[in-house]
């Protein structure tokens, strides 16, 4: 059954009509880590949408807590049909820092061990995470992934994380770059550089 108001179709065939004004930010999926080694968003699995439905996808990270001292939060992707999470990427990474004692500040490009030049490793997104003994510390942030289903262009992303870091540092890490492939990406995985982690990751599509 459909519903038409004043000549305008409001809903039909079990969905709101596409011409109806509604929010552009659509929640797709929330995954919660509980001493998890990885969290993976794969198009078509567990109601995840990561295809050409949206031109931009937004991941949000809520209180990611690394359970191993100095672990860094990372991500990688697979093209359609891929399984190894080893897509080639070139990235930039810079950070700003201030410690709790007020005795140290820094704005700098990240170490070459944290960015990638046509590398296939997981990309660091954060600074060194808190140890398990610092239960109140966490990392929050976002990643914007642009047009992952394109088969013409490289796939760009932009991330920003703020960390309550080991050794009492407040650190903001900004990473941007591209997966240097024209194949469509349909799967994204998050992990710690070592050990497991807790926290929530939400995926949104932007119409």
């Amino acid at each position, binding site marked *: 059954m459909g*519903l*038409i*108001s*004043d*000549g*305008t179709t*409001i809903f039909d065939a079990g969905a709101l009509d596409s011409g*109806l*004004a*509604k*929010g*552009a*930010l*659509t929640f797709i999926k929330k995954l919660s880590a509980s001493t998890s080694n990885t969290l993976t968003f794969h198009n078509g699995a567990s109601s995840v949408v990561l295809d050409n439905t949206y*031109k*931009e996808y937004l991941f949000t990270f809520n209180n990611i807590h690394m359970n191993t001292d100095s672990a860094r939060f990372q991500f990688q992707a697979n093209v359609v049909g891929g399984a190894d999470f080893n897509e080639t990427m*070139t*990235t*930039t*990474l*810079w950070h700003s820092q201030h410690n709790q004692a007020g005795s140290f500040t820094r*704005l*700098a*490009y990240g170490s*070459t061990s944290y*960015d*990638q*030049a*046509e590398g296939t490793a997981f990309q660091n997104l954060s600074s060194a995470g808190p140890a398990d003994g610092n239960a109140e510390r966490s990392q929050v942030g976002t990643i*914007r992934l*642009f*047009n992952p289903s*394109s088969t*013409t*262009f*490289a796939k*760009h*992303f*932009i991330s920003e994380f703020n960390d309550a870091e080991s050794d009492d540092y407040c650190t903001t890490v*900004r990473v*941007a*770059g*591209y997966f*240097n492939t*024209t194949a469509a990406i349909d799967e994204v995985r998050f992990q710690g550089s070592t050990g497991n982690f807790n926290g929530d990751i939400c995926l949104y599509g*932007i*119409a």
Partner: protein
Amino acid sequence: MGVISNGTTLLDAGAIDSGVPTGSMTLIKTLTASSSGTLSFVNGASNVVLDGTYKQYVFKFIDIHTASSANLEFNATTNGSDFNITKTSNAFYAGHREDASGAAIGYSGVDEAQATGFQQITTGDNVAIDNDSSIVGTLDIFNPSDTTFVKHFRSTTTFMGIDGSVRSSNSGYVAGYFNTTSALTGFQFKIRSGNIDSGIIKLYGIK
């Protein structure tokens, strides 16, 4: 026909009632470039809303492919036709080359000091024009219809660049203000030299 549930109007006159939560981010307009000299969003033209309806507007750049190796730039108008508003801005960039021959963060000379020219929002190496290269990013405009304050903006972009024959990841961060208390009624985007070969620019309103 309208629909009223438990005394609350859900829809009437062909639209969801304004009291029903529908999300705070609204897609206003999508423009698609095809060898375009400029793309313009002007309040009241072609269903564009750029007035006091929203306090924040967001432009999204999806795979902007340039015909020549030149930067994406923008300007604003107060009369709908002359895009030449005085602005002061700051800019910096982070870059990393695919062959790992260079990585840096630095202040960028694309800033403006009370200038009326178009503001570059990509910075770093020259923009690559390979078939798989593109520009992505966001531009926030705050309270453009205000007649008391200057009008602030901030942008984050990332793109595939080129220096000699080496490709690179570049991210640009530009912020500033249009130094006018007149309401801004439109924005125009172009490439400093040559056309926008292809790509999408979306305009959203944030409640």
